[in-house]
């Protein structure tokens, strides 16, 4: 009693910071594990933005989409090595853009154009290569068309990169249903395999230098191939041993009847999906396609659910699907839906013509719709600050 009151005396008990709160905790909540957004929400948001990008070829809208996703990545990506993959995706997108333009210049474009920018010497091709052109006239219309087209693909790639950076695929795989868990682990292990392999190649190529052999060039790469594979194999074996010793693959006893039902449901479901898809795609089977497909999906899902009973696994702190996850997903889906709608209402603004060549204009309300995609930057918590003391202090 006395003690509990004693602590109320002024000046004696300064309020202790709560355990686990970051030292520099400002008003922004940090994305500690509990506050993390469900990875599925990030992926849905990013893929929806990607879908939106496929609905338009307007370069201004596409640039806006890229900016929106880039901004969210910049402020919300976590400090994990995986998040650095965004840069790689951006580079890939740039490469795609340049390649497409180079093709348009060298191989010409099917777009008829009148504004000739310059003319490359045309390479005469034999008769059998009719329809292919090398060099020749390069028109502004052709280039613009290629640019719009490539920008769309680039935007899509950058959106996938955003999904990767915001929530690594391995986190996404953890949300798989129990029956698919082992598949998920296999993929995760494979995902970590690649970076390890690259690290090994680097280390062994460096070691070549120590032997007095050149550490660059193709021959060096070939010669380290075998040791690298050996090392990778050894590591895989020891990982498998460790996983086995830690209980990977423990299964519960289930009655044979359940096992058989599971197999029947899954197999039947997959067959149904195949038959239904076939029916949908062929003109003749229009009537039965959809119902068979739906029945197949239902049966496969039931098989998965029943199969999940064989695994003992429980899940540690699964990411909850909360209101913020709904909001993030909804913002992405809204962008995709509104752009699709705009595409049917006002096709001219979303697909600016190149013949005759005219400067693209920014259609007002579709642009506003794209801005909805910024919502995650405000409703999700900021990533936790890095507390590595060896990190460079920011100047």
């Amino acid at each position, binding site marked *: 009693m006395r003690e509990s009151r004693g602590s109320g005396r002024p000046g004696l008990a300064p309020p202790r910071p709560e355990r*686990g709160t970051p030292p520099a905790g400002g008003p922004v909540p940090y994305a*500690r*594990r509990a506050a993390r957004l469900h990875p599925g929400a990030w992926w849905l948001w990013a893929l929806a933005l990607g879908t939106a990008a496929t609905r338009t070829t307007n370069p201004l809208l596409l640039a806006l989409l890229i900016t929106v996703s880039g901004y969210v990545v910049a402020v919300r990506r976590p400090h*994990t*090595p*995986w998040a650095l993959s965004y840069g790689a995706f951006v580079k890939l997108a740039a490469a795609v853009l340049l390649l497409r333009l180079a093709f348009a210049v060298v191989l010409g474009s099917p777009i008829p154009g009148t504004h000739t920018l310059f003319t490359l010497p045309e390479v005469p091709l034999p008769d059998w290569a009719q329809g292919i052109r090398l060099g020749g006239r390069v028109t502004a219309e052709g280039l613009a068309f290629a640019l719009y087209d490539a920008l769309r693909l680039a935007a899509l790639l950058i959106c996938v990169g955003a999904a990767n950076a915001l929530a*690594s695929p*391995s986190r996404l795989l953890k949300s798989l249903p129990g029956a698919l868990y082992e598949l998920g*682990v296999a993929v*995760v*292990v494979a995902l*970590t395999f690649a970076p390890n392999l690259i690290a090994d190649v680097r*280390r*062994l190529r*460096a*070691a*070549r*230098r*120590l*032997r*007095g*052999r*050149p*550490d660059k060039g193709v021959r060096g790469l070939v*010669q*380290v191939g*075998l*040791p690298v594979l050996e090392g990778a194999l050894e*590591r895989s074996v*020891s*990982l*498998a*041993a*460790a*996983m*086995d*010793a*830690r*209980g*990977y*693959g*423990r299964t*519960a006893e289930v009655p044979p009847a359940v096992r058989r039902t599971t197999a029947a449901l899954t197999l039947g479901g997959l067959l149904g999906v195949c038959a239904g898809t076939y029916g949908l795609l062929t003109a003749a089977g229009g009537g039965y396609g959809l119902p068979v497909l739906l029945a197949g999906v239902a049966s496969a899902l039931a098989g998965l659910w029943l199969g999940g009973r064989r695994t*003992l*696994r*429980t*899940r*540690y*702190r699964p990411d909850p699907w909360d209101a913020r996850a709904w909001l993030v997903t909804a913002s992405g889906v809204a962008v995709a839906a509104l752009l699709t709608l705009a595409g049917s209402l006002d096709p001219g603004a979303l697909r600016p013509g190149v013949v005759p060549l005219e400067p693209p204009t920014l259609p007002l309300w579709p642009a506003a719709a794209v801005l909805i995609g910024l919502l995650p930057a405000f409703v999700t918590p900021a990533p*936790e600050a890095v*507390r*590595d003391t*060896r*990190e*460079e202090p920011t100047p």
Partner: protein
Amino acid sequence: MIRFENVSVTYDGAAEPAVREVDFEVPEGELVLLVGPSGVGKSTVLGAVSGLVPHFTGGTLHGRVTVAGRDTRTHKPRELADVVGTVGQDPLSHFVTDTVEDELAYGMESLGLAPEVMRRRVEETLDLLGLAGLRDRHISTLSGGQRQRVAIGSVLTPHPKVLVLDEPTSALDPAAAEEVLAVLQRLVHDLGTTVLMAEHRLERVVQYADQVALLPGAGERLRLGSPAEVMAVSPVCPPVVGLGRLAGWSPLPLTVRDARRRAAPLRERLEGRRPGRDTAPPPAAPPVKRRFGRVKKENAGTPEPVAEVRSLAVRRDRVRALTHVDLTVLPGETVALMGRNGAGKSTLLSALVGLVAPSSGSVRTGGAVPHRTRPRDLVRKAGLVPQEPRDLLYADTVAAECAAADRDAEAEPGTCRALLDQLLPSVADDTHPRDLSEGQRLTLALAVVLTARPPLLLLDEPTRGLDYAAKARLTAILRGLAAEGHAIVMATHDVELAAELAHRVVLLAEGEVIADGPSAEVVVASPSFAPQVAKILAPQPWLTVAQVKEALER
């Protein structure tokens, strides 16, 4: 808790059993240390406890192993996962997930524990191992000691009755090793966990053991007894025991404290004597400060340095690995680089052979700028034996490896083999480098590097995984090389090795040099880097048992 009944294990294709007629029992709640020279089957015994031998490795197991009443013959490793936790030599190959918290939970998820239980145990384990601040960290960003603690934590959370550890401290710096051992002791004392562990660095662990199981040699029978009893006959023993044997103390002291209390008479006998050659100052005392330009002319008598590093800074992935490092190495001098895991020791060695380019400052090895020199010329100036000597070996027989080394170094054919014969006579030409023991592989890599006769020899963590015999052989080899005029720089956590070999110790912390001076001064001044003999005989400047022995015989 663990019971071996007449166990022999024969691997497929092997003529002889790896271990023969092992028969012992580990009672509940004891910490038992498994010791013995390399290659006597310690890992096999450990693997048999978790069921990985023979379920995973193949081979035939005769006899019976039971853990908590379960026969490993009928229980696969995954069915023993709730009673046995195993941590192998390399924690990195143990991790399945990518963050600390998920890794701790992984084993429990496999066992199907309830979410509340998992949450509680993860929090407990984070506190127990001091990992709370790292819970969200990506595993690839952790240091060696942190990784080892996470690996131990990850097998602790399912609350196993038995913990099996293979060399838990050999890759760690002294402070991190103590951290890990303190945790183990806490588990044994507070939770009654049974621990069986193998470790070469006895000086670190023997005082924590309740019993010691000794495998004296290949095919010999296992002997179990109290640490003092077993250490009296063991072919491998830590310096404190070596000193005890030398001084004839009985019972043998196992801790520095026990030994100190006995050491007063020995200190008196040694009064007035000085250590002999081993730590004699280097041929010429290195100039301490050379910040301003060239060495003055009056130093003309000193030999040309084989390596010179001036205010070197190296950045790796935006992290400053080294800042303002100055180092001069003279011919015939042996320098030990010490410091925490991640202090920049390996980076400094890499800079000396041009594997990393300096971001500022300069490095000169034998008068050349290493990262701009062609590898073929550089091997004649400096040779590095990396942490994993296997990285240097590509061929599939020892003979082919030696021939390749001669070609690389443009040396007379047979040079490398002759060197190898000098260092390690017993290796056959047609052996695959992978089948060599750690010590043999290290020696082969050393021979390969020495083929080009580099005046500067660099070694990264050379004693990892070596037993005392292999270490003694390495020490003799390196001492011989230093006497021939080779300069040696080695990065090591092994304080005993540094005490035996190094003329000079350079301490690194956070990429900076924090101490540089004669071994006796630097090492003795630091409680975590002082070798056992120094601690026992302080304030007298003795570092190794060999020194004391020599002084007593004089």
